């Protein structure tokens, strides 16, 4: 009976917590990601390619407000490279001693520069649609990386009988199938500096890996600490069981 109760209790938790993970609507195929599993880490080369895609394809419309240029050290870049990367953008600073605002090149301590000064400007520049901030995109969507991959590779012609509104594009997985974003990736749309062939699938894989990192930059530290904590707790619990058996030996 006790065993039945324990397994029933476990079943409750799974049953109750499960629906939070279930995705609605279209079936999203599961893919393999370097950052999944107990030991998963972010694929550095893929992230670097992802950064290049973000810079060349996405950053015209999508902000990355929660990231600082200094965070790029996680991708394996040297301080000098990060400084040069940041300096390609201009930020407004000030007021200076004369009380004037002035523009200066961005520093590693600055946040990623936004494409639009505010939401209204972003809508005005995008046919009334607001391109969402990408910082938390992987965590903020049901299905996470698999959904984003499916979305980015899911642009097709509208099936017969479906009229797509003006300025909208047909997408297999987007809720409602009409998305304001034009297909952002195309074969050889970028020329990767590391020579990797830039297919749409490859680019989708890379940008999603990059955005998984921006969603949770501390994931690797978390798993590394988790491993140590679990090993400690297993040993510690073993000792506690031994102690309990000794203490109770004279009662049983």
């Amino acid at each position: 009976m006790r065993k039945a109760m324990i397994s029933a209790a476990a079943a409750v938790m799974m049953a109750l917590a499960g629906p939070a993970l279930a995705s609605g609507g279209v079936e999203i195929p599961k893919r393999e990601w370097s950052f999944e599993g107990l030991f998963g880490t972010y694929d550095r080369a893929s992230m670097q390619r992802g950064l290049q895609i973000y810079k060349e394809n996405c950053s015209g419309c999508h902000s990355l407000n929660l990231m600082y240029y200094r965070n790029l050290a996680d991708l394996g870049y040297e301080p000098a490279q990060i400084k040069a990367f940041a300096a390609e953008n201009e930020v407004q600073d000030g007021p200076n001693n004369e009380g004037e605002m002035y523009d200066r090149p961005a520093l590693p301590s600055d946040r990623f520069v936004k494409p639009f000064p505010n939401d209204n400007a972003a809508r005005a520049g995008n046919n009334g649609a607001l391109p969402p901030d990408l910082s938390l995109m992987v965590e903020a969507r049901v299905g996470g990386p698999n959904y984003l991959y499916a979305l980015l590779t899911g642009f097709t012609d509208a099936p017969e009988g479906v009229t797509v509104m003006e300025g909208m594009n047909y997408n297999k997985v987007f809720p409602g199938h009409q998305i304001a974003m034009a297909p952002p990736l195309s074969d050889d749309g970028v020329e990767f500096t590391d020579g990797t062939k830039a297919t749409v699938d490859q680019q989708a894989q890379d940008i999603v890996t990059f955005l998984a990192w921006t969603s949770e930059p501390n994931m690797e530290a978390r798993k590394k600490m988790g491993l140590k904590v679990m090993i400690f707790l297993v040993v510690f619990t073993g000792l506690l069981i031994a102690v309990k058996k000794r203490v109770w030996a004279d009662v049983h």
Partner: protein
Amino acid sequence: MNTAPQWKNPVIRWVDERLPVFTYMDHEYGQFPMPKNLNYFWNFGALASIILVTMIVTGIVLAMQYTPHVDYAFNSVERIMRDVNYGWLVRYIHMNGGSMFFIVVYIHMFRGLYYGSYKAPRELLWILGVVILLLMMATAFMGYVLPWGQMSYWGATVITNLFSAIPLVGNWIVTLLWGGFAVDNATLNRFFALHYLMPFVLFAVVALHVVALHMTKSSNPDGIEMKGPQDSVPFHPYFTAKDAVGTGFFLLFFAFFVFFAPNFFGEPDNYIEANPLVTPAHIVPEWYFLPFYAILRSITFDVLFIPAKLMGVILMFGSIMILFILPWLDTAKVRSAKYRPIYKYVFWIFFIDCIALGWVGSQPPEGAALIIGQLGTFYYFIHFLVVMPVLGKIETPLPLPASIAESVTGGGGGASAGAAAAKMEKP
């Protein structure tokens, strides 16, 4: 068992003669008699107090970095996740700790239901437990609003709007909760203040719960009272050691989620900043509210002169309020389901009913889910209002063992006498 320990250390003796903390601790946690037949389900009270302290400590640390303002709350949480040293760790512990608290407390409550722990003389102990559950729910609800994500905002909107169903004063109460005419900055601020306050109220009620427990002593799987030293073992070292084992397994379970699946219990939508202009497709509360949410939404029809919405609200609150009178609804004299051949199955039917309601709560209220929710809600109340009172009258319980010692060892108390002696040798 000696009741007035002689303290050898002069400092301890000096303090104890003026403020008997050491005598108190020795009495309540040293010599305190525990039934020797307790199983591991009796660990969950201790686990709940551990997680309560964990929540308070991590919560205080988070409050040092959190900004309760609609413009900054979401980003201040992300700052904790990214730039505050070990902020991700503290926040993930707090975030998953909420779910852990409810898992532990629900198991603790189902244990009470199965073994009849709420029956005389433990009615007040049970009632204080229900008060703790209500305080936990209020605290968890307000805590979920603080990150100011989409689910925070819309969950707060849906739940606070429930109060508008109350006749006459409903709208006034909602305005009072909001501090305005919509969920806004004033709402966030008062929820933060109350979310910080209520755990300390909770802590005080937990203290009362423990005092009540120490008056009546623990119940046990056989549901018979301890009759003498042969039935019990002192709390320390026996239950400190046993609770420690449970704690070890609990921490393993807890740590797995914190480190390897920290967002398992969460909703992706809450990583989108609150936006009053965009309603999420599917507003769901945290998993621990799902059965109650299902009861709320299962009333889709007016009941006599009561509108459907008000009836749903009444039943949702009623589903917890009914627990207050459970000690008097259950007419059976025998406590433990072990000796109640029919209740044993009735308990599991009720358990499955609760799970089913939880599933319904996670689904849109339509089709099969709605019908299952209505049947589940009906049975939930039938269980308490009809089955429990009637079953106690018609069920023939199995014969109870003469004593706890007999049920454990088949008679005799030699082992326990040895245990008591071992205890006395301790300095």
